[in-house]
């Protein structure tokens, strides 16, 4: 073979080898790229900043892709190498959160405030599916019943003649395709239901989701009615001349009734027996009193405003054993927060978003009126002992401030769901078990929340604050 003949062959060999190498490198590169992309939960991959995207997306309606997988919100994360703490589960304003189990896996259902569509998201991946496309606009609040198969949507309308506000309450059942929630499903379901009476002032669903209780104004005050969710059978169980109640229905049909709070007004909390029609007083004359009862109904969290300091506490109907056999029904917790920022877990454990108020003279009213917002850190509370454990400060972890509302714990107790009041987005907080365990050997008795954070090595963490808007 002459050199002239061999040269093109060499060139071909070189080109072929180069091509193969190029393809291999390309494949390896693509493999690494996709591998890294799948492993995104431990890194912040979004261009332009995670929170910029979240804020910019706040007004986008991702539900336009009806029946398809909704683009995953970009999960916020801790820095590279650390465990994931927070994941954003929705980019639109949401309300109403419940967990459902399908084929052994836990999903989260929520409602979009703009159109009343129901979505389902995997809290571990953020993968979201739209479940319904029945439009009920401008939802103010949603409550779940019947294990996540029924939802109560509350919205505001105007009377056609007087122009006055009318509160509408729609009790609906989810009608879903059989394959909904599976990875291949592209069908979408709907809501089928009926309206409860207009102008229901307050409503509560029992923890087991089987019944709801609502308050309706009457000429003399207010009436209270229990509705069985499956049969829609309604029964009036309360007539009260006093109407400013916040109700919480228990599984046994009793209702916890707490007076609506104001920072400088003494509040009361009663257990109302709907059969005997009797009030049993639980908490009395606590300024700014708000409560949140545990699913079992025997214990509740409460907060009171004492000289502009907000204090959390636990009330137990059986009582806590004290020194010399003295039984006390109340036990203080060294956290400044409201019970509605706390989620009951298994047994006596509670996870709370808590703040450090610089001036709390108007709490909770000013927060309800939207005149102030909180920057919450996350805490674990053992209500048996009142011991608290610092879990995370999102300002330190992901440079984001959360104002926690609608908290809920997934049944495994390791994930807390909440809606950020600032923009209505839904988030998952993964409890850092290592931090919680590390506190076991440290005596934190008598320390303030800020001191405990210092002890646990968070001294440099930005102080959680209260932001007054005026």
């Amino acid at each position, binding site marked *: 073979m002459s050199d002239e003949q061999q040269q093109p062959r060499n060139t071909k060999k070189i080109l072929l080898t180069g091509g193969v190498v190029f393809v291999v490198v390309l494949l390896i590169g693509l493999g690494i790229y996709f591998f890294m992309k799948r492993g995104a939960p431990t890194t912040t991959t979004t261009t332009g900043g995670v929170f910029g995207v979240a804020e910019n997306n706040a007004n986008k309606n991702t539900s336009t892709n009806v029946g398809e997988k909704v683009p995953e919100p970009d999960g916020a994360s801790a820095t590279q190498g650390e465990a994931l703490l927070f994941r954003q589960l929705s980019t639109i304003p949401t309300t109403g959160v419940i967990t459902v189990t399908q084929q052994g896996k836990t999903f989260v259902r929520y409602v979009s405030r703009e159109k009343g569509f129901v979505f389902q998201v995997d809290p571990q991946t953020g993968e979201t599916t739209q479940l319904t496309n029945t439009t009920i606009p401008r939802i*103010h609040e949603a409550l779940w019943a019947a294990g996540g198969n029924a939802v109560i949507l509350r919205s505001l309308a105007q009377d056609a003649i007087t122009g006055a*506000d009318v509160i509408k309450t729609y009790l609906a059942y989810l009608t879903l395709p059989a394959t909904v929630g599976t990875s291949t499903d592209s069908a979408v379901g709907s809501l089928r239901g009926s309206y409860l009476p207009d102008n229901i002032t307050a409503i509560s669903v029992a923890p087991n989701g089987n019944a709801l209780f609502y308050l309706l104004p009457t000429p003399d005050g207010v009436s209270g009615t229990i509705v069985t969710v499956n049969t829609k059978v309604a029964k009036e169980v309360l007539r009260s*001349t*006093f109407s400013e109640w916040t109700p919480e229905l228990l599984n046994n049909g009793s209702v916890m009734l707490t007076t609506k709070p104001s920072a400088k007004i003494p509040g009361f909390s009663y257990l109302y027996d709907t059969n005997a029609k009797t009030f049993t*007083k639980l908490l009395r004359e606590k300024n700014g009193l708000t409560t949140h009862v545990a699913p079992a109904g025997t214990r509740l969290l409460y907060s009171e405003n004492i000289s502009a300091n907000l204090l959390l506490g636990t009330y137990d109907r059986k009582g806590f054993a004290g020194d010399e056999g003295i039984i006390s029904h109340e036990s203080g917790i060294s956290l400044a927060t409201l019970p509605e920022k706390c989620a009951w877990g298994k047994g006596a454990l509670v996870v709370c978003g808590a703040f450090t108020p610089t001036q709390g003279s108007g709490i909770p009213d000013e927060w309800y*009126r*939207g005149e102030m917002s909180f920057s919450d850190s996350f805490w674990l509370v053992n209500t048996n002992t009142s011991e608290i454990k610092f879990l995370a400060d999102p300002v330190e972890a992901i440079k984001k401030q959360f104002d926690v509302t609608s908290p809920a714990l997934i049944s495994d107790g390791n994930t807390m769901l909440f809606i950020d009041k600032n923009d209505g987005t839904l988030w998952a907080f993964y409890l850092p078990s290592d931090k919680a365990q590390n506190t076991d050997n440290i005596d934190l008795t008598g320390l303030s929340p800020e001191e405990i954070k210092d002890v646990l090595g968070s001294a440099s963490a930005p102080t959680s604050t209260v932001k007054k808007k005026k």
Partner: protein
Amino acid sequence: MLAYYRRTLQQIITGVLFLFALAPLSVFAATTVDLTPAKTASFNLISIKTVPSTPGPNEPVTITLKSFSTDLSSSKITWYINKNLTKEGIGETTFITNTGNTGESIDIDVVILTNQGEEIKKHITLAPMEVDVLWEAQTYTPPFYKGKALPSYQSIVKMSAIPRHNATSSNPLAFAYKWTLDRTSGAGEGFGKSSTLVRATWPDSAINVGVEVSVPGTEVVGTKEISISSVDPILNFYQNTPLLGTRFDHTMLGANTPSGQLNLRVVPYFFSTDNLKNNELVYELKIGNATTPIGLNPMNITVPRMSPSGETKTISLHIQNPKHIIQEAAATTQVTFTPQQ
């Protein structure tokens, strides 16, 4: 005939004299009942009093004997609780004990043996009743508001009593009520009258509302008095958006928008609801320097953009209730329209 008239006149005079003779006794009997309602077992000149006069459950109670006619200091006095001898001695006119739980009666018997050898028995029952007084101002708060409506000047406040004597009788309609305003009766009374209406006073001032609750035909009495302070009304602006409606979650202190207009809702917290519903409030709205015409709909105020270039507008609002002239509030916010491309 004359004798007949004389006899008749004598009978009339005798009858009148008899009535006059009885009258003081009637008055005295009524007075006795009033002064120590159902606490004195029988008429005598030794009084028995408790401090507080209507003790609540699990409260310490001081019981004192007094007399202007009997020398108690030299008498042997024996105290019994539920028939059990608890204390005795010469001149033991004071006894301290605790009431039981709600609905749990305690019988106190006292036997007084004077140095003249006379034995006098007294009895009192401590049947504590607990009374909670709840109130709600008839003032405006927006739908879904989780906080309490607060009273403003001359607004109506509805009072409700929740008495508890025992678990089965805590139905409020089973009790008799006497309401007082600033310790003066006349705020309402009657069997089953568990609620009444009063008017709030000046901002930063308070009214005192009291109630005495009793179980008719028994010795059970409970009282409670509370103080209610008034506040100034509050005005807040909230943004109305087409997709979300009114965003009550956040007051609008200022807004930046590229759109052609901004829609707001004003919420007049704590104005009297009756005057609000009857459209009796007077609104004075200024957008920039322009005062808006009469007929403002506070539920939807439109702030229009005047030019495509950027501009900032100050919106100020003053609301007054002409029925209660001090019931007023003012607020200001700003809207910045960013330049349109």
